């Protein structure tokens, strides 16, 4: 399979078939927490894409050149959390200094996703052997992080759109807010289950 073909497969897989939120059930807290308004959902989505891409790249390097040579792969979770937390802190400081506009848009969301399970999840999935026994190389690990972030943003925006419309609906008091949000999340996950049948 050539590079573009692999990329396409990876994109469809990360966004639809193995969607982080609706298939792997990772990153559910921001999915339910920041999906009330479209613009905050968008800000969160951009922050997640950014952090996931960075975390994938750095964690892959840490794993390959530090943990594997010393036989410390069993410590990968610990090492990744440490790396991601430090990385997000560092990135936050850099953009606060150099890009105040970007900081205003992403700033509040960056610390929120520092220790999010989706971010750690992508780092760990990147080093987990695939079905055919092979593992990602550096480029594909990074791309996988980026595309998984895109998939997350995609469902977050869809959820925000639906919830914004539901605001105007006359709903029983007991179903308002998180109750309807949970049912929505479940229904969307069922819908995404249909993508499992895609053969690529």
């Amino acid at each position, binding site marked *: 399979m050539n590079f573009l073909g692999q990329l396409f497969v990876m994109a469809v897989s990360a966004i639809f078939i193995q969607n982080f939120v609706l298939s792997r059930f990772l990153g559910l807290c921001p999915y339910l927490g920041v999906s009330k308004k479209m613009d905050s959902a968008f800000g969160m989505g951009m922050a997640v894409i950014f952090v996931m891409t960075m975390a994938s790249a750095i964690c892959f390097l*840490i794993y390959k050149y*530090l943990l594997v040579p010393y*036989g410390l792969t069993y410590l990968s979770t610990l090492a990744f959390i*440490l790396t991601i937390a*430090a990385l997000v802190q560092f990135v936050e400081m850099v953009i*606060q*200094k150099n890009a105040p506009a970007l900081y205003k848009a992403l700033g509040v969301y960056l610390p929120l996703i520092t220790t999010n399970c989706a971010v750690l999840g992508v780092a760990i999935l990147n080093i987990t052997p695939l079905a055919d026994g092979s593992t990602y190389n550096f480029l594909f690990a990074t791309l996988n992080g980026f595309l998984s972030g895109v998939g997350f943003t995609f469902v977050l925006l869809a959820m925000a759109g639906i919830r914004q419309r539901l605001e105007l609906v006359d709903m029983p008091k007991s179903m308002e807010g998180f109750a309807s949000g949970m049912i929505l999340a479940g229904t969307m996950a069922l819908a995404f289950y249909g993508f499992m049948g895609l053969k690529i």
Partner: protein
Amino acid sequence: MTPMTPFIILAASMTSQIVTPVIILGAMGLIFGLVLAFAAKVFTVTVDPRVEQIISVLPGANCGACGSAGCSGYADSVVNGGAPCNLCAPGGAAVAKAIAGIMGTEAGAVEKKVAVIHCSSGGRDNTKWKYAYKGIESCLSAASIAGGPNSCSWGCIGFNDCVKACMFGAISIDESGMRVIDPEKCTACGACVKACPRKLIELVPLKNSVHIKCSSQDKGPLARQSCGNEKPCLGCGICSRKCPVQAITIENNLARIDYAKCVNCGICATVCPSGAILDLLGGRRKKAEINGELCIGCTICAKSCPVEAISGEAKQAHKIDRDKCVGCEVCVGKCPKQAIKMT
């Protein structure tokens, strides 16, 4: 092989199994920590300490009356954007003075304002209805259906959007369903002004006590027909002609008071044929009187009197014509000798 050898090998392998990960993770933590500490120094954003100080003296209501997106936004624009320090309506003069102290500038005077509803209708018994509205209890929603359910298309609908918008609880509803604004609680933040779909509410200096309680731009007969309180402004212009200081203008069949010119004499309220003008001081006004012993004849009072009720030669004690005096109290404040009293 001595009996001790297996133990030594075991101990050595355990040491390497424990020590290596400890060293590697410890080193990672140390390096990340150093990098972050270094970055914190290199990428530090200097925040003006005055911003924090101003935020701490602001009321924190985030009402937006200043035009910024909230209290912190206002503090930022005062320090970095050169915004004046007297824009905080809820905080009033005290906060303006505190901000001026922090910034090291003089505080401009904050004129205390209060919201006034320019309509006397909108209650349970003083509203005429065009149709029975059964929708959401909101003025905005009602006003958008066939020009609103009340027969006067300028007047108050009475679903209390202003009450809901007020975050200081300054608007209450009396037993007849009318909205009453408490000038003590009103901070003139302007939230109700924005909430009213009929644009009936205006922020007026607290010292002004005469208000036109109508916003109808309909012609006289139509306004009379549709006003549920039967006190519409007919646009006749009598008030405008009788006003001693020309503070009232008629535009689009509606009288408007220029609050900067108005001296609170209340003459307009007494001459209005339909009773559309509310005089909060009505019947409680006093007349000015000059104490002849204190008066030095400086003529300042005579010059400042809007109705020329004061007469007298220079350096002679002045006299006030009680029939002409409208009780506006302008002269009282002007007299350098405090010789004028209201009786």
